[in-house]
């Protein structure tokens, strides 16, 4: 694998970075926070053609490296939109021959199977009419609404029921489980990319602060204790980004990639939290106030990690994949 991005990939990364910088500024994120969703950002993503890029079509599209570049940028800007969920659900529907979903509709998806017909705190669940999930041995698409609850990761999470309402069975038995497993791996990879982006952004913010803030007559970034704390997590964030990109590249190259996606998610989600903790700490008391941004990063990072299920179980999966692979 060539770790450098191609010119086209660079162009995609910078187009989306610009879009998120504009449409998901910190002010916009703060305004969208309690809903976990920014409709204007969503329209901008639909208009720029995110879903044509992310879903294979007659004119190309669907390269996973492109997807993770978008997701990294989204993670950096704390985007309030169910990007991973919608991309993953749409790709799955397409693989199963259902491409009649309204273009541009946000969707909810959970990488976890339903418990007694219910998906707890599914990301996107409070804004998406359509939720796609595994209920026992059937893969279902359910239309409905949920009043939603405010989740502190502002992921528009909500409890959704899979066994009532307007429900279409997409697959049953082993093919359902298999299709869901692939989609869950895709979700983990896209979400891992978001976590890596979030970690890198938190460190950039911390680095800027450490250069500006003076104590004892010098920038706090000149203290070894501060440098080492940031450098330690910077290594991890770097590693998370490499893992994400390698898994995406494997996927595009037709190589086994699912286990690598789980590794990337387990590691990037943990790294996101560690990076944000470090960033918050470097800000001293200011980092703890609602006026500064670390709190936004911290809550989002925890939300992204828990959306994938018990973090220990994710690591257990990493181990099991190693043993069985």
């Amino acid at each position, binding site marked *: 694998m060539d770790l450098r991005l191609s010119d086209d990939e660079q162009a995609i990364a910078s187009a989306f970075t610009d879009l998120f910088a504009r449409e998901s500024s910190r002010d916009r994120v703060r305004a969208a926070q309690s809903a976990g969703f920014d409709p204007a950002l969503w329209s901008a993503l639909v208009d720029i053609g995110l879903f044509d890029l992310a879903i294979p079509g007659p004119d190309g599209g669907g390269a996973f490296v492109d997807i993770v570049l978008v997701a990294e940028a989204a993670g950096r800007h704390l985007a309030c939109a169910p990007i991973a969920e919608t991309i993953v659900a749409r790709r799955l529907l397409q693989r199963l021959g259902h491409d009649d979903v309204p273009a541009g509709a946000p969707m909810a998806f959970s990488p976890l199977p339903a418990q007694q017909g219910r998906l*707890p705190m599914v990301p996107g669940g409070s804004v998406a009419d359509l939720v796609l999930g595994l209920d026992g041995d059937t893969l279902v698409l359910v239309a409905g609404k949920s009043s939603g609850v405010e*989740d502190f990761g502002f992921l528009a999470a909500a409890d959704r029921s899979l066994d009532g309402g307007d429900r279409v069975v997409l697959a049953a038995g082993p093919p359902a489980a298999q299709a869901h497993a692939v989609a869950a791996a895709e979700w983990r990879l896209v979400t891992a990319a978001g976590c890596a982006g979030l970690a890198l952004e938190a460190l950039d913010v911390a680095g800027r602060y450490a250069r500006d803030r003076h*104590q004892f*007559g010098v920038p706090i970034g000149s203290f070894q204790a501060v440098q080492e704390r940031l450098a330690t997590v910077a290594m991890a964030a770097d590693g998370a980004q490499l893992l994400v990109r390698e898994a995406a590249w494997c996927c595009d190259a037709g190589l086994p990639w699912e286990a690598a996606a789980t590794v990337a998610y387990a590691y990037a989600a943990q790294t996101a939290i560690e990076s944000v903790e470090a960033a918050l700490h470097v800000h*001293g008391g200011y980092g703890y106030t609602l006026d500064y941004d670390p709190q936004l990063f911290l809550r989002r990072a925890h939300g992204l990690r828990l959306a994938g299920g018990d973090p220990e179980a994710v690591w257990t999966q990493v181990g099991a994949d190693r043993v069985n692979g």
Partner: protein
Amino acid sequence: MKTVIADEQLTFLSDLREYLDGLDPELVAAARAENIEDPMQPRTHCQAFLRQLGEDGWLGISWPKEFGGQGRTDIEHWLFAEELYNRRLPNGLLTFNVVGPTIMLHGNPDQRREYISRIMDGEIIFAISYSEPDAGSDLASLRTRAVADGDGYLLSGQKIWSTGASIATHLWVAARTGPPEARHRGLSLFIVPADSPGITITPIITQGGERTTSIFFDDVRVPATQRVGAENDGWKTITAALNFERMFYHNEPRWELRQLAEWADGAGLLDGSTAESYELQTVMGEHAVDVEVCRLMALRGAAMLAAGQVPYAEASTNKIWWGELRQNICSTGLDLIGAEGTVVDTDGAPASGHLVHGLMSSPVWRFGGGTNEIQLDIIANRGWGMPR
């Protein structure tokens, strides 16, 4: 090794428990709820609770009887604080545990008589005003000035993070009386009534929900009698108070671990033999050991105080251990609870939302009372004699 807790002290503890058990349950419940929501602002119910304790003779455990205290040792004071922490009830916070003891140590006889008795009556509450926007870790660079004027001083400048100032009656203010280049040798400590003309207090809201404040001093008149210790000799008073503060944190981690245990019990994880319950039990076991170490560090500090010493590196060790532990308990607790623990509305949330609340407030303990990096410096320099 000597027994730290003697029979007499155990009797004290059981008397205390009996007393607390007998208090009006409504008063206790209201004080607890308020204390959990924001422990740094004892408001109506917490103040009523403390006044009740005062009336019944249960405050000022280690203060002399002549000031209305119980005249016991710091070990009993520690037992008292721990018991209240364990019930998540207010134990007098900075006023009783930091400012009061420092006035006893460095105040003059008049100040001791006046302030200790008023603290005991529940009449006054202190907030601590050291930090400034540009003087955090480097406290000795603070710029708020107290300029001599007649028989007192005029105070001007800005403080930040003065927690509890919105409900406090008095501020415990560090100000510069000497030249800036004198650094910590040019500071003095003042007791300033919070309603003095020229003081403006504005709120700051934190991610953990606690309120803290910014304070602006605009030529505030402070009589010389309000200065604690000699002019330019305030650093001694400030560091003593900081050590009391770093020592007074102790038992919340135990309470938080109990919230986790209660949640786990309800979820059937305490006696199960699934992978999840093993994981939970292992985590609980590890944390329980850390909680015990935390308790012992605080007890050691109390024993030093009882022997007339002020803990220094020991206080820093205590503070780091306690703060990191709270963060660990809440963070692993939330992982175990999972996504359902991320609901912001705490009605019906797992463990009543206490662990999420704890998780969001715990980062502050890595810098409140001085950042952990500064504490590590103190442990290395003061505790281990490393060169500066």
